């Protein structure tokens, strides 16, 4: 259990360290603080979105030790000491990841609200299964709801990225 600090009103807070996108961030949080809110409000990582706060939409997807999870279903204290990748950590040194580039080129982004979660779910998939089939891609993003695209271009984009292409076939 992380170190606890109690203020003069008797409210207990915990000193936790989140390893976010390669940086160790130490924050003081209440026991009931949701991980999404800590990332967004304390660390200004607002690329992690909130669409439902119930685990339904996947907008708040992050990678926790490499695995995609809905950060709205986690307490910040549970993530103490763990490795977190948010959407802000996907592009390295200003270079987009192949999935990101492919998403742009395939017009797989419309309003973009689901996009960070989609990118991270796809990233996790391609890391564990570099050459997925179409049903495997659909399965991997089934926890990420998109109201704009019917998933058509998103699935195309992820498949293309897995084949080392980032431009659509009709380009």
């Amino acid at each position: 259990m992380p170190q606890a600090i109690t203020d003069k009103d008797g409210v207990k807070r915990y000193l936790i360290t989140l390893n976010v996108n390669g940086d160790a961030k130490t924050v003081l949080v209440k026991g009931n603080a949701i991980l999404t809110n800590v990332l967004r409000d304390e660390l200004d990582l607002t690329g992690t979105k909130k669409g439902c706060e119930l685990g339904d939409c996947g907008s708040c997807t992050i990678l926790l030790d490499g695995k995609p999870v809905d950060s709205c279903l986690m307490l910040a204290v549970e993530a103490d000491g763990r490795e977190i990748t948010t959407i802000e950590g996907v592009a390295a040194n200003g270079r987009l990841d192949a999935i990101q580039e492919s998403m742009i080129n395939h017009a797989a982004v419309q309003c973009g609200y689901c996009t960070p979660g989609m990118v991270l779910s796809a990233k996790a998939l391609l890391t564990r299964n570099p050459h997925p089939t179409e049903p495997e891609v659909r399965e991997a993003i089934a926890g990420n709801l998109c109201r704009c695209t019917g998933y058509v271009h998103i699935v195309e984009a992820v498949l293309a990225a897995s084949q080392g292409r980032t431009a659509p076939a009709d380009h």
Partner: protein
Amino acid sequence: MSDNHKVIGRSVPRIDGPEKVTGAAKYTGDLKFPNMLYGKILTSPHAHARIISIDTSEAEKLPGVKAVITHKDVPELKYGLSPARWDENIFCIDKVRFVGDKVAAVACVDEETCYRALKLIKVEYEVLPAVLDFRHAMDEGQPLVHEEYERNINTEIHQEFGDVDKALAEAHHVRTDVFVGQRTYQAPIEPHSAISMWEGEKLTIYSSTQSPHYFQYYIAREFGMPMGDVRIIKPYLGGGFGGKLEPTGLEFAGAVLAKRTGRPVRTFYDRAEMFAHNRGRHAQYMEITTGVDKDGKILAAKANFMMDGGAYTSLGIASAYYAGALLPMTYEFDNYQFDMFRVYTNLPACGAQRGHGAPQPKYAFESHLDNVAADLGIDPMDIRIRNARRPDTVTPNDFRVNSCMMRECLEQVREMSGWDEKKKNLPHGRGIGVATGSFVTGAGYPIYRTDLPHAAAFIKVHEDGTAATLYTGSVDIGQGSDTILCQMAAEAMGYRYEQMKIVAADTEITPLDFGAYASRQTYMSGAAVKQAGEEIKKQLLDMASTMLSLPADDLECEEGVIFSKSREGKSLTFEEVARKHFVLKGPLLGRGAYTPPKLGGSFKGAAVGTSPAYSFGAQVGEVSIDEETGEITVVGIWDVHDCGKVINPRLLHGQVHGALYMGMGESVWEEVLFDDKGRIRNAELANYRLLTAVDMPPIQSEVVNSYEPTGPWGVKEVGEGATNPTLGMFSNAIFDAMGVRVNSLPLTYEKVWRALKEKREKEETIAA
């Protein structure tokens, strides 16, 4: 109409793509301001109740609470979106009218304190009987949702064109069917959010809005302020689909809380509150009668509808008119009667959802038309081709149709889906259905009465010519208008898309535009942008003419190069000419504005449904049904759209996919459900049943090669049209597979299973 376009017609990547894929794009709820407070609204737990008293004293004492407001603290003026029926108050005064109606609001130092403060507000209610079933809302003795609206009638429409009774009397075959639609919700993934702040007498609101202009107008009106003192800014927006078209309690209450506290206030809905605010698709009861000749040619149609408006009007008057106005679009007939009652109930208000008012009537009409075709033994595709609207025609309700390739859409989708083959060979349990749709390319008239242009734009070429910024009030809600309009600007200027910048949807900086609704941006905002771009080009060519000592009409500008049409080698770059212009004449600016021509007839309600151009489309879907369980598997969907010139093919097909996705959900899965107290039973995305990636079938989307003579470069609608055929298409595919017709939406597995069971029982009785 030369097709030598350099920038339009290409699938350039979205201008906002990099920001969106990296998480850098800021949506309203991502913004923070120094000293910002959080605000929440207290809503009614009852569907219908008198407010006896409200006691806020305990809430005010809670540490961290900075303001608590009720109806006593806000203007009493009623607001709404449809000027003919402003019927909503910022906070309820005498009574609440649905579960979720606004009662009070708090501003606190953090979100957690807000929830605690809301719990401490004591409201005493006298619960009243509620109207929950819209079919009985007009009955004698029903409680009244609004005392001033007798029999709960919000809107009543009676229109007749031609002589319907005579045509029906003379028809070879007359048939009547009844269908019922369900209430659905737009469910954008981004929840509504607003941040309000004051500087002296000036109010600024960042909002997840589809129309900064309408927000500005209605908010200024509510607070009695000059419009110039209200600034509305739309940051990135996470989907609207009609649900973010009108100002909500978030903006009104937020503005008052910010004034009271002197601090910025962020107000927001969570997912359940979004469902409660609603403004989704009206449930409709639809009785349709048509008379046809022996070949299935439609001679007359009668539509007798009723719709559940919920507790307030929202944009519902327009929805009610749209339901009937767009029915005679895809098929030609002269005699048409439309009767409609939109009634109040003690449920959340309904409004404009993608396809506005039209998808459910289309479901009814397309299902009915297949029944007629079956009666006459005609192929469903043939009956549609036989009746398909032709270009340069006028509908019975006086809408002028210019370009129209309804017939070609049907023929192409027939081919592409393998219709004839499948019709012959599909086994029992497998079925194929077809339906058509049409939609406006922008509304012919604004929502409130004004003679202002519908869209305006200006373009500033930077002093060294290496970039140009488009300023537009248009609103990218995800559909991609920022990208499309930059392509159009670059094309008109003779510039490069890659050098375009855009500033959009900020009422203080960008010129007027009515926003994202009624599928209007590419056409209307595009017309203004094209004009602005051409003004730039003209000034550039004039300057180049002096620089090259050649007549301006011998010069052309394409992709950043100005050249002589007659003399090889005589050219200048856009940059050097633009720079010269700046040095000699000052800023290089282009301006444009668009006002639609006068449209429509003179009967009551003639304005709704008018548009300078209409899109058309046809869809085929194939389903497979498990007879044991009623489970429906969608095998494939084919869509062909007549949407005029295509500016960006990938973005265009993305619109079709999204519209189809919404229509598919509404066909079989989506429905907002209520308990017997008027509380929503499934105000969550999973239980509302948004479809996931594994639920989606292969979708093939194509266009016909069409050109709309009134549109910039020949463009017209795409964003909503593809929702219109989908519901009817599924109904027909299920009918084809099983020989049973489900007469209400959604066409759930259970309903299909029950219909099959009834059919079997009937067959057994006959056999016995």
